[in-house]
């Protein structure tokens, strides 16, 4: 059980984040580059001094600025799998895993035997005598994880565990990681590299933007009710903030208005829309049942498999998703004027508070 509230100051940058995680839970930390995700992990591990706040792990206070408690990293029972693995270059794979056991005073022979068992469990027994330099990315990641787990931590921190891997190894390691974390009795905290990683690994997600927590919840919560444009972008939705002023009319911050299914909602609201619910036309549709027709030029085009995402400079701006076939048939290209039709019932709204 981890209960943390940390304040870290690094020059101009301030991280102020609180989070909790129960035993056996996996919390994924998601956020744009430079949001302070790694800093948060480092603070929890005691590698970064706190300017304020308190960290409690399984009932033991390991950091408390108010009372001056600061347990050194080596006595925190916090494991860390670094983004660059940091396997000791002078030790073989098996000795890397045996390292935490040796530090605890376990004999070389016994430490090595348990390390070999750990390697066996990860399915990489064959690399026991290999030095880190000669390991593949996937093998190094497994050794790093086995080494962190060998220290028997109460809290396990993983910093973008999949980002240094190629696509093939990534799928493989993701499965391994999910199984290992499920078996792990303590809490784990993962900084995620992309949405798929975040949504597939975590029971709970914490979104950090510019040093602050902007949303917490289950993966389903984030997909259903993104609280910020960043989260909406990660889960691939159009996102607008505005005010509902009666009769399902949303006045959007920054200009424009949309007719939407507002229910009884009034006041500050958020509206989201699936890009695939938007219909694009090369000419102005004269007869349509859609209550919203937006006009703008194509800003950018992004291919994702059989689908194509088209950004329009309309007011408000929208991102539409069309099939590759429609894309070709309509001859969509940047700069081209287009009309987007959106049904009011496809726009979902919820309170911004």
């Amino acid at each position, binding site marked *: 059980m981890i209960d943390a509230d940390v304040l870290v100051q690094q020059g101009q940058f301030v991280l102020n984040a609180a989070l909790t995680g129960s035993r056996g839970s996996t919390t994924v930390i998601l956020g744009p580059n430079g949001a302070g995700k790694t800093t948060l992990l480092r603070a929890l*591990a*005691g*590698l970064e001094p706190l300017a304020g706040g308190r960290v409690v792990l399984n009932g033991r206070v390991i950091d408390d600025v108010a009372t001056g408690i600061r347990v*050194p*990293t*080596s*006595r925190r029972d*916090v*494991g*860390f799998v*670094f983004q*660059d693995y*940091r396997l*000791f*270059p*002078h030790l073989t794979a098996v000795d890397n895993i045996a*390292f*935490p056991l*040796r*530090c*605890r005073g376990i004999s070389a022979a016994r430490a090595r035997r348990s390390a070999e068992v750990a390697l066996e469990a990860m399915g990489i027994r064959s690399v026991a005598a290999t030095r880190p*330099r000669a390991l593949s990315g996937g093998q190094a990641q497994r050794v790093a994880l086995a*080494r*962190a787990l*060998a*220290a028997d931590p109460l809290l396990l921190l993983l910093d973008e565990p999949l980002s240094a891997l190629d696509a093939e190894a990534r799928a493989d390691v993701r499965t391994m990681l999910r199984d290992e974390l499920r078996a792990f009795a303590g809490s784990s905290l993962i900084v995620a590299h992309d949405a798929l990683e975040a949504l597939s690994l975590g029971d709970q997600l914490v979104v950090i933007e510019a040093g602050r927590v902007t949303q917490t919840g289950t993966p389903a919560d984030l997909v259903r009710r993104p609280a910020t444009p960043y989260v909406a972008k990660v889960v691939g939705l159009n996102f607008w903030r505005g005010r509902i002023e009666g009769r399902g009319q949303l006045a959007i911050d920054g200009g424009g208005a949309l007719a939407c299914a507002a229910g009884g909602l009034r006041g500050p609201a958020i509206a989201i829309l699936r890009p695939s619910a938007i219909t694009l036309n090369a000419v102005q549709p004269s007869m349509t049942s859609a209550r919203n027709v937006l006009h703008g030029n194509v800003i950018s085009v992004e291919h994702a498999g059989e689908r194509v995402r088209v950004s329009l400079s309309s007011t408000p701006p929208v991102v539409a998703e069309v099939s590759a076939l429609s894309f070709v048939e309509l001859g969509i290209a940047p700069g081209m004027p287009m009309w987007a039709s959106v049904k009011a019932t496809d726009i979902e709204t919820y309170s911004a508070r």
Partner: protein
Amino acid sequence: MSHRGRPPAALVAPAIVGFGFLLLPLFGLLERVPWRGLPGLLGDRVVRDALGLSLVTASCSAALAVIFGVPLAWLLVRTEFPGRRIVRSLVTLPLVLPPVVGGVALLFAFGRRGLFGPLLEDLHISLAFSTTGVVLAETFVSMPFLVVAVEGALSGQDERFEEAAATLGAGPWATFRRVTLPLIAPSIGAGAALAFARALGEFGATITFAGNLPGRTQTLPLATYIALETNPEAAVALSLVLLVASIIVLALLRERWLRPRPGQ
């Protein structure tokens, strides 16, 4: 290389002169080596004593430099304390200080009439004009070489691995012993070789602090200098021994530099 065209003569000419200046004296030395009489000259008692004494004292100095220099370098790189910059400058001072000044300073610190002389006398320890004094003088001038080499290795090796060790439950001492030390071992070796070479050639501080007593404080450089007046052939033979020792140290250092560095 070809894309840069021919190297300019304004650089090539001085380079050749500089290289020649460094190389020619060695030819002068080698030309005078009495190859046939060499075994006899090197078998001479004075020469054997000086050689043995030099090897022992230079080895002791290199060992002392490692024992005290590695912790010193670690503190200078890995910790923050008031006056760290000043300490750092003082540690490297002997690199540029004339060795004879070092010898005078040692004399007035640890000599019989020096600052700590009475204290040492009470303890029945006499350092000046003894073999121990030779080791002290050599350590004084050679330890900075080791400190600089190890400092370079430590600052080049960022704290990534030390942080990793801490997250695995290693306290500061275990981290140093199990992670830092093995990682900087090649640089310690290089620093020790440099310190050994410097100690082997030490002249000024040694003759000032320890004197020139054959069998006790007369090291190879001292014996060479004395022999130059009495027996020039022996001086050449002794110089040859020192030259060979230097070449061996250089070869060891190249070996270290040519090997890929760990962690890369």
